[in-house]
């Protein structure tokens, strides 16, 4: 076997601490090495041409490039090798930059290490097998999980490009948190007014299959070829018959048993309900937990009034399976509820702010509903306890955010803006009212954002106080807010009529369960991890699964929408070709020796190991052994390490190659 070794100086990057000429000269003496050269920039055109020329001239079988990390230029050098006629998997990279020159100072020691690294790569490449890439078909359908603004945007973009979309939403209506907002910053345009046309568009789009009140139960398969099982929860309303007249919801005698979660528990809803008037689809849901019929077997008022006989009490959950090529996860966020301390959580709660105890201490979304023209107060500012107009409101920012000791370390990013908006909305309606904002820092990066905050302060006279609030107590219908003005270095006390807490944006309750169902990693807060924080912010590390919106980290609406469109574009990139090429790093079973203990099957995270029956010439099964489905295998090699008899090997990283590297240490 003839091996070529090419050492890159990477300008000064490697050359400064690794004596590249010495490395290349030393490597000439390695067994099997035909030629060893060094060059200033191996990844440049002349560098690549040099490799190609040497391959042709010396009839090389394999090459080792001592350069930067394989994550950087492995593809480049593989391509060069292919151009010159060798298999791309007969190229090995010795990482002389990130793992050697950049992390060491001593030139002698670094050069010795570099030689060792190249020697290990040479020994590995000797054992490398030529491999061919695997082609798998692509199902050109997208699953979008979550019907908030991000999910809606992603679904519309993909559908408008002509590909089918399945949009799954766990609530009875799409719209998400954006449908709850009264106005949006920094333009103060009405949230519903810009959102509802999009919701209707989704509903009417011929390419979008909308599944509300549904949840993803199981995801099997791999990029381009997922099989997704979706649980369609029983609405107890026949969707094909219901016209959405809403008569049942008005006649339902259950009035004060269930809180309206769309109104953030500031109002009640009947047992049969549509979450909000503009809901899409406009089909009610019967809440089994409060409906009188499910308790006593009587009532059936809705059945009596429904002219379409659409009520179906015995409707059951149904499971639907869909063939999917790409998944866009847009499950959004929820607000940190400061009154509760979820078990085992890192949150300690903010009992001193009295949320849940004091009726007039509300969170951001509750205030949105109070401010909203369609909300429980019809847009008039009335405080929840007695319905009086609050004359003095205190807004507290960073409740749960940027708080290592009691909440979360991260910044929720949108609270500075929406608090300014809240204060502004309040001042616009209650001209003689006073608005105080306790803040840590004002973070208003974004187009027109800083101007917006300035407007709140300068034009609307919102009083910003830099400092934290230590305690809120109730006294004669007033809330005494005790805090500190850190700029004036003095304690401050405000007797407010109402307090609004800008609580942290946190991951959805079931975020980690869903991540495990789909098979994507998540961080300690439950937000989903992107494949690369800078260069691959849309992809998850699982192929074919993309992220959109606040499920990845706190985001405002424009950011969520941008990310959703990007995720849609990523899905469409996938659909751009009929076949998908993937690296042939897959496991293969040695059928002669497999004893069929199926430990590999148990440990495989992808269910890629199947049972294969071995038959003799009479067709009688004489043993059952493992078989790897190449399409499903992602090449982690957990099976190879588990196999007691070493009858399963990972192509491209087989044990012989690893042993050779160890031997060359």
């Amino acid at each position, binding site marked *: 076997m003839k091996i070529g070794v090419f050492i890159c100086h990477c300008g000064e990057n490697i050359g400064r601490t690794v004596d590249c000429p*010495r490395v290349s*000269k*030393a490597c000439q*003496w*390695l*067994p099997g090495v035909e030629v060893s050269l060094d060059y200033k920039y191996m990844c440049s055109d002349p560098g690549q041409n040099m490799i190609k020329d040497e391959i042709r001239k010396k009839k090389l079988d394999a090459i080792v490039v001592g350069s930067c*990390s*394989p*994550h950087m230029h492995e593809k480049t050098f593989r391509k060069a090798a292919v151009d010159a006629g060798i298999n791309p998997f007969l190229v090995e990279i010795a*990482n002389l*930059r*990130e*793992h*050697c020159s*950049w*992390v*060491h*100072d*001593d030139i002698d*020691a670094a050069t*010795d*290490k570099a*030689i*060792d*690294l190249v*020697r*290990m790569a040479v020994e590995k490449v000797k054992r490398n097998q030529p491999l061919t890439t695997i082609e798998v078909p692509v199902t050109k359908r997208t699953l979008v999980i979550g019907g908030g603004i991000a999910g809606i945007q992603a679904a519309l973009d993909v559908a408008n490009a002509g590909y089918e979309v399945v949009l799954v939403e766990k609530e009875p209506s799409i719209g998400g948190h954006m449908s709850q907002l009264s106005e949006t910053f920094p333009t103060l345009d009405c949230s519903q007014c810009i959102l509802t046309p999009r919701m209707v568009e989704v509903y009417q789009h011929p390419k979008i299959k909308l599944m509300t009140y549904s949840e993803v139960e199981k995801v099997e398969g791999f990029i381009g070829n997922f099989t997704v099982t979706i649980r369609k929860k029983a609405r107890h309303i026949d969707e094909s018959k219901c016209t959405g007249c809403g008569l049942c919801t008005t006649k339902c005698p259950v009035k004060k048993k269930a809180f309206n979660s769309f109104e953030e528990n500031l109002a009640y809803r009947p047992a049969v309900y549509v979450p909000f008037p503009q809901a899409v689809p406009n089909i009610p849901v019967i809440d089994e937990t409060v409906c009188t019929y499910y308790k006593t077997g009587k009532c059936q008022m809705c059945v009596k009034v429904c002219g379409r006989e659409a009520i179906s009490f015995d409707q059951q959950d149904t499971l639907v399976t869909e063939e999917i090529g790409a998944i866009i996860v847009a499950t959004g966020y929820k607000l940190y509820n400061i009154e509760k301390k979820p078990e085992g959580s890192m949150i300690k709660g903010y009992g001193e702010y009295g949320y849940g105890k004091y009726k007039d201490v509300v969170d951001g979304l509750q205030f949105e509903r109070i401010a909203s023209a369609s909300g429980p107060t019809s847009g008039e500012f009335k405080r929840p306890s007695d319905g009086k107009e609050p004359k003095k409101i205190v807004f507290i920012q960073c409740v749960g955010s940027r708080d290592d000791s009691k909440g979360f370390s991260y910044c929720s990013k949108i609270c500075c803006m929406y608090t300014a908006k809240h204060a502004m909305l309040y001042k616009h309606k209650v001209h003689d009212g006073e608005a105080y904002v306790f803040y840590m820092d004002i973070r208003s990066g974004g187009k027109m954002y800083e101007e917006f905050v300035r407007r709140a302060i300068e034009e609307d006279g919102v009083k910003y106080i830099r400092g934290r609030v230590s305690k809120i107590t109730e006294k004669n219908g007033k809330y005494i807010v005790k805090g500190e003005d850190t700029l004036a270095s003095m304690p401050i006390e405000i007797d407010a009529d109402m307090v609004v807490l800008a609580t942290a944006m946190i991951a959805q309750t079931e975020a*980690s369960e869903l*991540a*495990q169902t789909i*098979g994507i*990693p*998540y*961080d300690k807060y439950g937000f989903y*991890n992107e494949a*690369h*924080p800078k260069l691959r912010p849309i992809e998850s*590390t*699982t192929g074919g699964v993309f992220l959109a919106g606040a499920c990845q980290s706190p985001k405002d609406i424009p950011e969520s929408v941008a990310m959703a469109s990007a995720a849609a574009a990523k899905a469409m990139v996938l659909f751009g070709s009929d076949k998908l090429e993937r690296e042939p*790093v897959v496991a293969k079973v040695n059928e002669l020796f497999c004893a069929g203990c199926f430990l590999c099957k148990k*440990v495989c*995270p992808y269910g890629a190991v199947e049972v294969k029956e071995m038959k003799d010439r009479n067709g009688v099964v004489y043993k059952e052994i493992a078989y790897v489905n190449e399409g499903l295998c*992602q*090449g*982690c*090699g*957990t099976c*190879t*390490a*588990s196999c007691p008899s070493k009858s399963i090997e*990972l192509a491209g*990283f087989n*044990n012989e190659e*690893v*042993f050779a*590297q*160890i*031997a*060359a*240490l």
Partner: protein
Amino acid sequence: MSDKNWEPKIVAFVCNWCTYTGADLAGTSRLKYPTNVKLIRVMCSGGIDPVFILKAFERGADGILVSGCHPNDCHYNAGNFHARRRWTFFDELLEYLGVEKGRLQFSWVSASEGKKFVDVVSKVVNDVKEMGPFKSYDELNSEFMTKFPDMPEIDKNMIIKEEEAV
């Protein structure tokens, strides 16, 4: 080799997605660590066989690091969970057989933890330096008339001669 200028030989088996990338980040951040450590890249910490460890000890490694993605952050979802069980057994077994804890160490280093990689690697090097060469395991080789053939020593004089010739 005299103990005075003895330098330990450390091998790190690392997964492609987290620790290898974390080590890349250590490089990009120009953090420094001892040259004793050489990395062997595998796809997943779940794919590291305990026999690799024995092989490395046989070949004169004084210390070994096994490192992968943090739990829940595995590129392959569960490879590191299987690895965790496997290493719990193997670590106990080796310790029971008389291999000091510090010879074989484990860590989770994510792609964004360049600093942690440096810390972990430096700790392993320091621990092993304190313990000295792994003589016990080396003695297992003592029966051999011929040891493993060393890879050809690079004769620096030869290079110089060649340079002169050119």
